[in-house]
């Protein structure tokens, strides 16, 4: 790779690089002010909390890349949590089957979203607002009151560490990136998602399979939200049909996507950025803790960080020469 290529790559992943830098700064600040410093338990606790939002944010990234939005990711997350709290227990075979069913349920929820958006020609926002309510309703039916169970050894393993150093949740996140995100990004369908988000008309004219790409994006979003729901079950050892959790995760996932450098217009960005966006949002919480600030300040800081991230993306406005284009 030549120097010119490197320059281009850096320019094109500016949003991601900024997110990584901001996170590194915040996390260093957190660790250096933490009474215990950088220890495995501190890291594991931070990772377990952050990975949940990171997975939901990855899920949100895919519909956003196609120029859409998925307001149901948080509800799929909650629904699969409730499902996992009833299915993922018993002997190893039952546990394995339970996990498969939970993930399939997530993917199916996403597929339904995609099918309505693609074949019903409905707007993604309103579609997923409606289906999100449906998925929350299913979660309530599954788990009218908080409770349930999950296979304890597995849950312990997933929320502690691999070889006593690396948090298992981070390994899971890495596996998702390597086994799902990167192959998808490098596939024809995945590039179709970027194409659709960049310019649907031009994508169609270029012979891109627009419908298939969209459908894949929403389905994969459901699957990723399902993985997050499963992980939530391991963290909490139970299931809860909680509307606040679903709502908060949905909104924070959108914020994480934007902070991670993905354009809400679609076509540019990626799930890696969203992971760091999620990490940044989570670290705000931890920073307030180590500096002894009241946790009530958290929403305020989250809002400021989000505004800052969006402002970076809005700089293009200064280059526009035809004012009518400001409104497009």
């Amino acid at each position: 790779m030549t120097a010119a290529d490197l320059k281009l790559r850096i320019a094109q992943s500016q949003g991601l690089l900024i997110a990584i830098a901001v996170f590194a700064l915040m996390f260093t600040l957190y660790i250096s002010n933490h009474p215990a410093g950088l220890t495995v338990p501190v890291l594991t606790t931070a990772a377990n909390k952050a990975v949940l939002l990171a997975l939901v944010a990855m899920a949100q990234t895919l519909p956003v890349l196609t120029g859409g939005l998925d307001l149901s990711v948080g509800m799929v997350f909650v629904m699969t949590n409730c499902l996992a709290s009833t299915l993922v227990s018993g002997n190893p075979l039952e546990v394995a089957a339970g996990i498969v069913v939970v993930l399939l349920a997530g993917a199916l929820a996403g597929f339904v979203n995609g099918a309505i958006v693609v074949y019903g020609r409905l707007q993604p926002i309103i579609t997923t607002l409606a289906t999100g309510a449906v998925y929350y309703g299913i979660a309530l039916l599954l788990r009218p009151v908080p409770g349930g169970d999950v296979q304890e050894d597995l849950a312990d393993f997933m929320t502690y560490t691999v070889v006593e150093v690396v948090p298992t949740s981070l390994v899971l996140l890495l596996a998702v990136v390597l086994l799902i995100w990167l192959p998808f990004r490098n596939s024809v369908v995945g590039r179709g998602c970027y194409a659709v988000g960049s310019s649907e008309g031009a994508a169609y004219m270029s012979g891109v399979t627009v419908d298939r790409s969209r459908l894949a994006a929403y389905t994969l979003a459901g699957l990723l939200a399902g993985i997050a729901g499963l992980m939530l079950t391991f963290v909490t050892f139970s299931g809860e049909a909680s509307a606040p959790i679903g709502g908060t995760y949905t909104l924070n996932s959108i914020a994480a996507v934007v902070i991670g450098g993905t354009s809400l217009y679609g076509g540019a960005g990626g799930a890696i950025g969203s992971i760091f966006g999620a990490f940044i949002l989570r670290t705000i919480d931890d920073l307030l803790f180590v500096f002894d600030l009241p946790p009530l300040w958290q929403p305020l800081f989250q809002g400021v960080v989000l505004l800052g991230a969006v402002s970076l993306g809005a700089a293009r406005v200064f280059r526009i020469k035809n004012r009518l284009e400001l409104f497009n």
Partner: protein
Amino acid sequence: MNDLRAPTRQGVLGDEASGAAAPYWQMHGITKRYGGVVALDGVDFACEPGEIHAVLGENGAGKSTLIKIAAGVVTPTEGRLLLQGREVRFAGPQDANAAGIVCIFQELSLLPDLTVADNICMTAPPGRWGFINHRAQRRRAEALLARVGCADVNPLELVKNLPLSRRQMVEIAKALGRGPRMLILDEATSALTAADVDKVYGILRDLRRDGLAILYISHRMHEIKELADTCSVFRNGRHIETFAKGARSDNEIVHLMIGREYTQVYPAKPARPAAPAPALTVDKLSWGHRLNNVSLTVGKGEIVGLGGLDGQGQRELLLALFGVLRGVTGEIAIDGKPGKPGSPRAAKSERIRMALIPEDRKSEGLLLPMSVRDNISMASITRFTQGLGGIFIDRERQNARIDEVVRQLAIKVGDTESPVANLSGGNQQKVVIAKWLMTEARIILLNDPTRGIDVGTKQEIYQLLRELADAGTAILFYTTDYDELIGCCDRVSIMYDGGIVRELRGSDINEENIVSSALNIAMESVPPAAETAT
């Protein structure tokens, strides 16, 4: 060069045996209707391998519908499509691509947020099992870019960061990468530099030698003379004539392209012994590459037409005058006093009192869900205020004036409180005009105001424009309909490539002069644009 094409395709002369004597591509009795509008009317058309076939016609002659049908973007209402003698049906662009028909559209089909390499290898990237081999993709992109003489473009660059001329070359590279057997170019050289155009000519000649069928749509007569083997002329959705290169002179071609009767009635133009006092004076207006030193004047009570082919800067000129564009250089004077509006709000202010009737009434002219009354009053609210320094609207005074304008324009509306979306196209356009009449504008700019409206309303609009002019309003009237330039306008300025190439007046305003000026070819009867327009 075969290795550059998508792997699924054989060479360009693939199954020659099955083609036998049938032309490569045939269209039989093709008709395309959009609602009541007939875009193509029983067209027969054929294209042979190894030839460059130019398609000529005015705006709205049916050229773009023709190529959209061939490219699988539009399905014909009636008629048959034959590929090498076999009937085909295209459900979408993919089908046409698979059949070897590749189109380079005027509106580029590139994806701005993706890299050049991604774009060039969009649908059939190298790789296995649906995964993309980025290294191979890059090599293919580099080879194709080199072929079109753009080795300087980095395949990793995002398309949106390239200048328009480079994008157009990337578009051509992308098309070549699909291994076409019929290549359609729709105004594909409009944004290219002279050096690039030469390269494209060279490539097209190579492809012709390789046996490709090439359909070439261009408004540039000299390009057609240089490249085409065969020319087909279209007019009003009909295929008029196909002839070999050199069989017709420029003048004959222009006549073939026009050849229609006047169907509209225009109010009489007033005799004008002396030039009127200028209301709007434009001096050397430029904006990026889209407007180049445009100078013109519109006198009080004068209707000045803006002509030329679509997209030669007419729209940009009107937007620049109305203060929509940033970074416009040059001077604009109102009644002889400098006064370049900085925004539409400034343009309609008491000092300037300019109005723009926009091209797309649905997005730029109307607030569709709001009532007819609200729409009509939208631009002139500040003229009807009262109390506390004018923060409230004087409904009574305003409604009286609205009713007056509705009567004046004969807007057919049952209830002025009903949403404007319920009105017919012609009445909607009248509402847009009414909105600006309310401001008592002294200068009215019109951007193709009669597009898509019925003949009756058109005539009412012509009548209205003349009445406004007689009352002293200065009118600058862009239209794609040559009849209107001839029938309505006291003077006509023809734009080409962002500048005014000719000014026509009096009896010089006729179809021959307008069409030949629009194509920027010299005809003996046309005097060059007057240097100092009055």
